[in-house]
């Protein structure tokens, strides 16, 4: 046996012959019917407009920045990141997204930053405007900056599921946890719900 781990396939046992009894005939009918039905179903599906599938996305208008996106995603860090629609931004020097509510004095120093991972970089554009740039590889999707920007700023910062990271679970962990019900399936062809500058 030791030298022959693989069986000799030439004399493999014969399977029983079908088609002899009425039972065999009925079973063959059931099997053929199932194959035809499955083939039909898959053909219909392949032509359906939704065949390409869905992905999960956050509706920024419903989001309450509760912070569960950072903890309830199966990925660590979360697939949810802060996204910035710059066209809506006021380009403030002191960004509500960036700074604490109760900052001490008029200081621009780092300890006043409210982003726990320092993912917001302030880039000078022209006096007195500053671009708030999100470093996505640092962002953990906690939504603290989004909360500040939504409550006191222009709401140009918001959370989105980033599809380069999202593994598109059949049941999205943060969708289940979201208290606002803000996360739903969207078509894979329109995978983002970006805010736009309102007229």
């Amino acid at each position, binding site marked *: *046996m030791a030298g022959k*781990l*693989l*069986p000799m*396939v030439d*004399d*493999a*046992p014969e*399977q029983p012959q079908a088609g002899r009894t009425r039972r065999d005939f009925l*079973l063959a009918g059931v*099997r053929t019917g199932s194959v035809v039905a*499955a083939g039909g*179903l*898959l053909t219909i*599906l*392949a032509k*359906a407009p*939704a*065949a*390409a*599938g*869905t*992905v999960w996305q956050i509706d920024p208008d*419903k989001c*309450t920045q*509760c912070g569960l996106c950072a903890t309830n995603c*199966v990925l660590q860090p979360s697939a949810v990141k802060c996204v*910035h629609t*710059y*066209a*809506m*931004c*006021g*380009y*403030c*020097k*002191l960004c509500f997204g960036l700074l604490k509510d109760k*900052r001490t004095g*008029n200081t621009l120093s780092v300890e006043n930053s409210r982003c726990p991972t320092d993912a917001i970089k302030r880039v000078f*554009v*022209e006096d*007195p*405007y500053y*671009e708030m740039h999100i470093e996505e590889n640092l962002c953990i999707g906690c939504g603290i900056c989004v909360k500040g920007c939504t*409550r006191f*700023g*222009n*709401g140009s910062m918001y959370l989105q599921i980033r*599809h*380069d990271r*999202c593994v*598109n*679970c*059949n*049941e999205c962990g943060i969708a289940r946890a979201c*208290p*606002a*019900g803000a996360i739903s399936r969207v078509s894979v062809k329109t995978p983002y719900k*970006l805010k736009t500058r*309102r007229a």
Partner: protein
Amino acid sequence: MPLLEPGPWDRGKRSRLALAALAAVAGAAPAARAQEQKKQPPPEFSEGYTPPMPSQPQPRMPWLAMLDVALLAAALGLAAWIGLHRRSRREMRLLGLFSVLYFGFIRQGCICPVGSIQNVALAALGSGYALPFAAGALFVLPLLASLFFGRVFCGAVCPLGAIQDLALLWPRRVPAWLDSALSVLPYAVLGIGVLYAAAGTAFVICQFDPFVGFFRFSGGWLAISLGAGLLLLGTVVGRPYCRWLCPYGVLLRWTAALTRWGVRITPKDCIQCHLCADACPFGAISPATLEAPAEPRATARRRLGRVLAVTPLIVAAGALLGWLGAPAVARYDRVVSLAERVYLEEAGRVKGQTDASEAFRKQATPTGELYRQALVKRRWYGGATTLFGAWCGVVVAGKLIFLTLRRRRPDYEADQAACVSCARCYTSCPIEQERLTGLRSPLRDAPEQL
């Protein structure tokens, strides 16, 4: 004039007052929030600066899902070939290892045929969801394979099955009564999975998937401990998830019972040595019925009659339990639990707000609309949970009927509905060893050793 000047507007009291005013406005008029948000007009830049656009990294290409479907089909074909034709345990184990690595760790277990039950249920019974092609194909392919080759999907393609098969180090047999009793559980899991998916409430089969946490190296403590517990148990008890929990296994049982080709243990005549049945860790080999049953036919018939007589009672009891449990089952739905909470808050019977009720109030949906939606859901759950209870009753009664039936088998045979084509029995069959080695089995000449 804008409330806030751009730049260093932070000049103590004034800005704090402005903040307070803004907060008051934001709190008082949630409906007008979207309009109020533009508190600081985007500046007009002088030096030709244009605001950058947020990037939109695209999801995994849809054709890659087709690749997964093709790989699944190929793996099913390979498993059928190895299990039924090559009859090689070693190759089956290698294929299982591949499935754990690719479908498990690389594809991270989503979506899988087990979970696709819910996509099908949601598309067929729910509203507003169209079944994606890949989900439909993943659902159908293993069932089709099982219709022709038995449960080869479970054997070495399903990553959940394969990881348990690899973990099974010291197999022990489970008492038949326990195995039989636990084997009704998957029907209940299937029922509850379809129930919650069709309602659009949740995909609970995925939520309580015990092994996906391992495949992703993450997951909640509940999922991880469930998976670790099952794997630990699975070192001595063969495939506990597949046999006593997996809802897709139920469908595969049904199709495999009709299978065209299945595992045949002995290449030629069975010498009834029962070594294969001893080797099967899943209790999937039915022993030969050597002697006619000792009891007279009339006794067996009376017993069947009694079970058939209580069947309607069992089904009715199940339906009643389902109907009674409907409100509790419905509470798992977001809308229902939210409506109950908001109602209690409005009535002043609870203090404070939950995150969900706070979020609901911010969205400024009328409370009546929420109650209406919750009532529709509740009514649906009333009927559906009753049906679910009746289904559980049917399963229990069916199990009892099945247990009263005796069938004659001349030889030891793989029970096609339960067999997962793991190929363990081949290595223990002395007649198969004769075929492999060309040597005559000593058991033939010394049948008293059996």
